[in-house]
């Protein structure tokens, strides 16, 4: 299996403290990874650096055929790598508009957008809350929208940050089910979590972040 993402070196410090010091990390297509580690171990920072949302002190990585070595993070890479926040932000413009936001950016025509969005709404089980304003959705529903918003873009690498934190059991189960369905042979999903329901899922590969280094995989 070929690595979709290969990090040759990644370093990140905050002041004197070196948070991340990764020498070698492969993420393969067709896999779901559970990234574990103590609070403050740098899980979110690692995902955010891979997604280009935070600069690293040193970053040498290859994504598919693209090598990134000290250069500015290319906008094109953000089309393939999507990061979902722990507390996703939903634009004020309605649930459907949120889901189709990325499609619009990619120039997908309205008819196709509508069809893809309708399918995603159905997939995420959002039909019953479509008339609710995004800010009034529960934490679980916000995650559902965020996952649907990411899924419609078919990201090659989906990075999901603590998606089940602070959710009740029913919402957690729903999010876990959606995450499983998000993975395919062509993409890779990395979920930063403490949730045993995700970590212990069959077929999930475990990564552990400790003292700046990642083990497992």
């Amino acid at each position, binding site marked *: 299996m070929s690595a979709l993402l290969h990090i040759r070196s990644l370093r990140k410090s905050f002041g004197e403290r070196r948070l991340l010091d990764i020498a070698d990390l492969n993420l393969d297509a067709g896999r779901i990874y559970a990234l574990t580690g103590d609070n403050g171990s740098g899980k979110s920072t690692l995902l955010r650096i891979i*997604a*280009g*949302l935070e600069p690293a002190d040193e970053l040498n990585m290859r994504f598919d055929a693209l090598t990134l070595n000290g250069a500015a993070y290319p*906008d094109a890479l*953000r*089309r393939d790598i*999507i*990061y*979902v*926040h722990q*507390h*996703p*932000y939903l*634009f*004020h413009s309605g649930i459907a508009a949120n889901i189709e*936001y*990325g499609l619009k*950016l*990619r120039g997908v025509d309205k008819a196709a957008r509508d069809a893809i969005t309708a399918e995603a709404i159905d997939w995420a089980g959002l039909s019953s809350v479509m008339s609710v*304003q*995004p*800010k009034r959705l529960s934490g679980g529903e916000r995650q559902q929208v965020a996952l649907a*918003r*990411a899924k419609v*873009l078919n990201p090659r690498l989906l990075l999901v940050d603590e998606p089940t934190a602070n959710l009740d059991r029913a919402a957690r189960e729903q999010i876990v089910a959606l995450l499983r369905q998000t993975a395919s042979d062509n993409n890779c999903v990395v979920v930063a979590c403490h949730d045993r329901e995700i970590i212990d899922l069959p077929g999930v590969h475990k990564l552990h972040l400790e003292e700046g280094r990642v083990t497992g995989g």
Partner: protein
Amino acid sequence: MELSSAIAESFRLLFSFDAQLWTIIGVSLKVSLAALLFATPFAVALGFFLATVPFRGRRACVIVLQSFLSFPTVVVGLVLYVLLARSGPFGAWELLYTQEAMIIGQAIIAFPVLAAFTLTAVQGADRIVRETALSLGATKLRAALTTLFEVRFAVMAGLFNGFGRVISEVGCAMMVGGNIAGLTRSIPTAISLETAKGEFAQGIALGMVLIVLALGINAALNYFQGEGGMK
């Protein structure tokens, strides 16, 4: 004139569509709206720039901008007067005592209000608004515009606030407009003049228009904020 008869007369002037009175209202609205139209794009751009782009001296720029919020409008009028007077550097343009001069003055007065509201709104927007847009594939420019769109109701509050400030200011309008009847006489300058003459009816009528405008602006702001998902 007694107060009660002045009020009665003011209603008569308003509802008989007194030409002189409604010309004053028209001049005020035209000048104020034109000033806002002129100032808004630049002020919003500056506010957004200061909120999002770190650079050396940014803090000083923010302090200067915020100081201009309390800058007396009469001083703006004075500076503009010196610049536009026949002997001033822009005297050849012959703008003094014209609506254009009033528009320039009011645009200068509205500018810091609009820029400061935008600055505060964008700074107050959660960092993940921009990050979410970027992560979904937006370019930096598009992500910036998305952030601005998300805080549009706070920016709109600045717009209404700026309108309230310019339509009721008297110092600059009087100095660079000259309070010429039918040309540069606006609501506040007319109120000032009529009151000085002891003619309260027109002043009261114009005052009522200002109050109605203030109520209308606040009602509109509340409505839009409600529509903006703040229910």
